[in-house]
């Protein structure tokens, strides 16, 4: 474990990713109590450039962009983690069942993942969000529903590979039932690739959710969600580029953090990869 940690902290990308993530988390947790009200309008202060009073300027309704970006961090990180939590839970369960039960069940469950894999994910998420009603919770459900198969495939492959190993045989010889072997012996060992994938997927989920909000299927104005903010302010790019750029940079940094973290985790946990 200490060796792994040392390897992780010697990887500059991983450290940068972790630092970025911690900064964003801190912002999401503490920021809202430091910044102004993200919904307070002041039409006399429309589209003002950054100033000591408004560090990132104001938008077309005179709202403080910094306050909105800070509140958006909480939303986007929440959506990202929520999606990955739901999707990895569902995907891991399906993969574990498929790999553990084998035979007909395996075939059935894997064909099910094939179907969800072939779905154009953004379009499916859009359809689900449209059907359930456009809001943040439904965005999380929609994106989780289109991303779970990747975990199912990963876990199944791991279970199939691990099933033949000696420690499983030893457990079986000691009289452990198949349920116990699956949950206590196979699952913990199958989670490494899930962890790496989950790190990338938080970033991907943040991007997808922001895209959905941008075209109106996610968070609705005036919610300070990053994608929705870019959509609201895109027509003011010429007069007030900061209003749309600030939330976009927020998305960029959050996604970057999880991509760097994913690369770092992969390097540490899977020495074969580069």
């Amino acid at each position: 474990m200490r060796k792994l940690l040392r390897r992780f902290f010697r990887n500059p990308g991983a450290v940068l990713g972790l630092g970025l993530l911690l900064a964003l988390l801190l912002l999401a947790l503490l920021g809202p109590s430091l910044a102004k009200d993200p919904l307070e309008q002041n039409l006399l202060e429309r589209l003002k450039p950054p100033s000591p009073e408004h560090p990132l300027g104001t938008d077309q309704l005179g709202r403080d962009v910094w306050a909105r970006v800070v509140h958006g961090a909480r939303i986007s990180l929440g959506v990202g983690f929520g999606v990955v939590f739901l999707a990895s839970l569902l995907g891991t369960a399906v993969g574990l069942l498929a790999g553990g039960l084998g035979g007909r069940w395996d075939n059935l469950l894997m064909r099910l993942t094939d179907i969800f894999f072939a779905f154009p994910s953004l379009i499916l998420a859009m359809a689900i969000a449209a059907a359930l009603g456009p809001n943040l919770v439904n965005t999380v459900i929609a994106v989780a529903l289109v991303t779970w198969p990747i975990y199912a495939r990963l876990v199944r492959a791991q279970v199939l590979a691990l099933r033949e190993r000696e420690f499983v045989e030893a457990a079986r010889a000691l009289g452990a039932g198949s349920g116990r072997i699956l949950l206590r012996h196979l699952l913990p060992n199958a989670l490494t690739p899930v962890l790496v994938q989950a790190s990338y997927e938080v970033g991907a989920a943040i991007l997808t959710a922001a895209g959905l909000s941008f075209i109106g299927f996610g968070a609705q104005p005036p919610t300070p969600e990053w994608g929705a903010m870019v959509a609201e302010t895109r027509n003011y790019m010429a007069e007030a580029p900061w209003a749309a750029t600030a939330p976009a940079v927020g998305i960029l940094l959050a996604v970057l953090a999880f991509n760097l973290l994913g690369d770092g985790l992969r390097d540490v946990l899977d020495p074969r990869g580069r």
Partner: protein
Amino acid sequence: MGAYILKRLFLVLFVGVGITFVTFVIAQVIPIDPAVAALGENAREEQIREFRERYGLDKPLLVQYGLYLQRLLQLDLGRSLRTGRPVAEDLKEFFPATLELSLAAFLVAVCLGLPAGIWAALRQNRAPDLLVRLMALLLGSTPVFFLAILLLELLHRKLGLLPGPGRLDPYLIPPPPVTGMVTLDALLARDWVAFRDALHHLVLPAFVLGSASAALLARMVRAAMLEVLSQDYIRTAWAKGLAERQVVFRHALKNAALPVLTLLGGLMGGLLSGAVLTETIFSWPGLGRYVTQSATSLDFPAVMGVTLLVGLVYSLLNLLVDLFYALLDPRIRYA
């Protein structure tokens, strides 16, 4: 090989039916009555009843699904509630624009990602490698919609280098539609002015749509090349004094191509569905914009049609890639 193809084709069919089932279930979740949605709030009782009977909406759900599949076999995707036209006709009209855009984006991804990945692998941990990795990381993390807005603002509004949204200058007469892809149609009609203009309109959306894929491709190519370049036979190739060009292109690239190839099918499929955001921003009259507008007005026959079409194209592309793979790698064929 024949049995393999047949089995895979059967799987594509299965996935297609699965897609229709899932979308059908989603369409049942909407809290809005399709009859009321189609006829309007002020429709009379008997009008609604008649509509329900005509479209089988009064039957049990499984029967409705059966009816839907039956119509599907006759290529009848139903009628769009929004445009009032058969969905199949809408798809025929909007698909070529999406195909044109995603093919162009695919070209962008390959032309940028492939050389960048090779270059980075050959100069591992030196300036070119670091530059490519940084660019790939940044492009892969940038929200596509903001990239589009930013480039439109800079290259179109500020510098005037490239045209804005749309496929063709409104003052130009569009070439007679043959393929539905404006660039190709202009070429076929030998209308060079329209061709130049259509190409100019294509550059920005194609770059925006292809950028994330280019980043992904560069990363994959780099990893695959590094894997191959560390092999013994490459050292032998260097040792016997072959030129870099020969080592790279004749020995390394061929073997690195296989893992990259599997990625390409998924990449093209991803572009088709990723076109949603790009098309919306660039007012590109393709499937993405069509499905966005349809979903907004809860026009589920249209959404189901697009989902099915894109899902099937995606599955077929993957099948094609797998077959190609089997052709190139005998280990797969005889496994």
